[in-house]
């Protein structure tokens, strides 16, 4: 494969095809001790590591690539490492921030930036090194729709003004298909399945790509059929609720009444307190003011304030799936992870096995039963974290951004699973930026501002 100067390439392929590894290799940050390498990869005809600064890398996680505390310093970091003279550094810092459209003070604290701003900051830092090649590894997967547009537009501006070669990996084809002029599909076993212009590749391979989990606009993932359900009983209500992680409330949602067999979506921009509200409804954070009241059908004898329930009492009443699955992993195998909840309930071994086996099959985790949860892919981890909550059969399930960064296959599986739960009588409360997900699932929506 050959990438010419100035080309803009979108790299597709199912998870495990080695897209990220390829990008890291291009950027020259794959160490000799990290697995085996065969064949050769040359940038400007030389080994990538010999060309520090010629290739710039932007990765998926906004938090892990902010290096320094001040915006200006963070952008200057790469230039400093390349030994650029001081006056030239600041000229480049201003220019780069300008190009990515990040209009904040140079001494602004980087941790106060939003996800989209952090990604643009990373892009500016890369740009200041004046690279010939910019590689982006799912740069928008962790962002809300607004952030996605911000970052995408910044990349386009940069590509047009600098003429740099761009290689981007991303599941969501629609975000990039108008920007790139070449699409390459990598095969899991190595090599490329398809290589050509976006329209060409998508019209010939679109359906197959969609089946492999790539988001192809012409082939949207299937949506579940919903059943009509009879009038329901109330599970949970809120009164004059104020939610926050400290003593200060970050959001005051209107009074909510959550019935059984219902799907409620919580939406709103970044920082509006959606996750905090979810954790409060889940009985994990105490309300800052007002109250969350569990009605008898949900409380089942455990008192009316979920925050006062014991941890074990929560299991059969409200299950919570965290945004980052890694936060809720407790054991060293997938099977043991699923057994945690049922065991805490004191179920006998036979019953635990039945439930675990059923979930393993239902969520396509059976082949991974003995794998270490930390080694799973993003989609597998997400399925596992949902499965661990389902193992104790809670009446209500609270999920925080369940579809973040998922491929279309996991997306439609999750959707089908949640729809079935609701149809069977459970209640699902989901925080989500994902408009299609909300459209397909939600019976009602709360929007925080």
């Amino acid at each position, binding site marked *: 494969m050959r990438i010419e100067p100035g080309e803009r390439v979108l790299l597709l392929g199912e998870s495990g095809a080695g897209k990220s590894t390829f990008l890291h290799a291009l*950027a*020259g*940050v794959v160490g000799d001790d990290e697995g085996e390498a065969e064949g050769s990869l040359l940038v400007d005809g030389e080994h990538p590591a010999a060309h*520090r*600064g010629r*290739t*710039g*890398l932007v*990765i998926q*996680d906004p*938090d*892990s*690539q*902010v*290096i*320094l*505390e001040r915006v*200006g*310093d963070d952008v*200057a*970091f*790469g*230039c*400093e*490492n*390349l*030994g*650029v003279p*001081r006056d030239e*550094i*600041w000229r480049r*810092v201003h220019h780069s921030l300008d190009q990515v459209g990040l209009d904040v003070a140079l001494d602004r604290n980087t*941790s106060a930036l939003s996800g989209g701003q952090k990604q643009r900051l*990373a892009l500016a830092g*890369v740009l200041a*090194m004046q690279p010939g090649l910019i590689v982006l590894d799912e740069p928008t997967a962790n962002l809300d729709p607004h952030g996605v547009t911000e970052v995408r537009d910044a990349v386009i501006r940069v590509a047009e003004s600098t003429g740099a070669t761009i290689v981007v990996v991303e599941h969501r084809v629609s975000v990039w298909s108008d920007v790139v002029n070449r699409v390459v599909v990598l095969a899991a076993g190595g090599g490329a399945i398809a290589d050509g212009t976006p329209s060409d590749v998508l019209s010939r391979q679109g359906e197959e790509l969609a089946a492999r989990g790539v988001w192809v606009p012409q082939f949207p993932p299937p949506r579940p059929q919903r059943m009509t359900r009879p009038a329901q009983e109330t599970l949970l209500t809120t009164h004059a609720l104020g939610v926050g*992680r400290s003593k200060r409330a970050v959001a005051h949602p209107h009074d909510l009444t959550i019935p059984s067999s219902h799907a409620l979506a919580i939406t709103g921009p970044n920082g509006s307190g959606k996750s905090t509200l979810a*954790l409060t409804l889940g009985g*994990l954070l105490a309300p800052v003011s007002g109250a969350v009241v569990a009605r008898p059908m949900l409380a089942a004898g455990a008192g009316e304030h979920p925050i006062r329930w*014991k*941890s*074990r009492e*929560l*299991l059969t009443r409200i*299950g*919570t799936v*965290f945004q*980052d699955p*890694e*936060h*809720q*992993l*407790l054991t060293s195998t997938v099977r043991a992870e699923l057994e*945690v909840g049922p065991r*805490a*309930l004191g179920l006998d071994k036979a019953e635990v096995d039945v439930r675990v086996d059923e979930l393993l099959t239902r969520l396509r985790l059976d082949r991974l039963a003995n794998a270490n949860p*930390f080694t799973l892919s993003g989609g597998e981890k997400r399925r596992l974290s949902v499965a*661990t*909550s389902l193992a*104790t059969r809670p009446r209500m399930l609270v999920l925080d951004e369940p579809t973040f960064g998922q491929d279309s296959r996991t997306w439609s599986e999750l959707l089908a699973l949640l729809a079935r739960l609701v149809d069977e009588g459970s209640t699902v409360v989901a925080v989500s930026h994902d408009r299609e997900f909300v459209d397909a699932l939600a019976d009602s929506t709360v929007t925080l501002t």
Partner: protein
Amino acid sequence: MISIASVNPVAKLGAGLIVSLFLIVTIDGVSAGTALVLELAIIAFLGIEPKRFWLRTLPVWAAAPLTALTILLYGRYDGTVYFEFLLISISDGSIELAIATFLRVLAIGLPAVVLFISIDPTDFADGLAQRLRVPDRFVLGALAAVRMVGLFLDDWHSLELARRARGVADRGRIRRIAGQGFALLVLSIRRGSKLSIAMEARGFGGDTPRTWARESRWATAEWCTLGVGTLVGLIATVVAVFTGSWNLIVG
């Protein structure tokens, strides 16, 4: 008012160390008391907001009497004994030593805190690398790590909530915290390795000599800060020597 905030952190660190050195070599009330009076006078001119001053120095004010109390009860047995019970004894010797210790903790602790509340980690790193020639790999690695502490606090909180959600937060608190600590370690290593990839991708750790976007300034103000530290230490020592209470503890 004199502004200490803009002084190079390395100079502040130096001044604090110099005063400490003068006070560490002797244990007597006079040198520590003199230094403390001089320091309080200087601090009064630095224009630190009173509330901030008391809040930040509270640990020092709490530590000083506690340390002194320990010395009072268990310290040097000398002169008239006023009270004795098992290992506890209060004597002239222990009272004298307790007062000296009380003043010493304040005289070393207060300026250290006051100098440090105005230190910005970034400026400090600039100073260490450019002025003290500490290797920049070490300085920048540490600086980036410090920035991650906030993320770890958030992680810890999430881990705690997640354990409640998983039904395992009712019993075995000590074991749970140990498990949570291990989980945090795993998460932090993963974050750390991502950060190091990001740093490496921006040319960190290469062979090219590094430049610095901002010069760590060293001018009159920095020399003055060191001078003031030396002066405080010297005056304290001279007063102690002349009153005959100075006692060198080394050797």
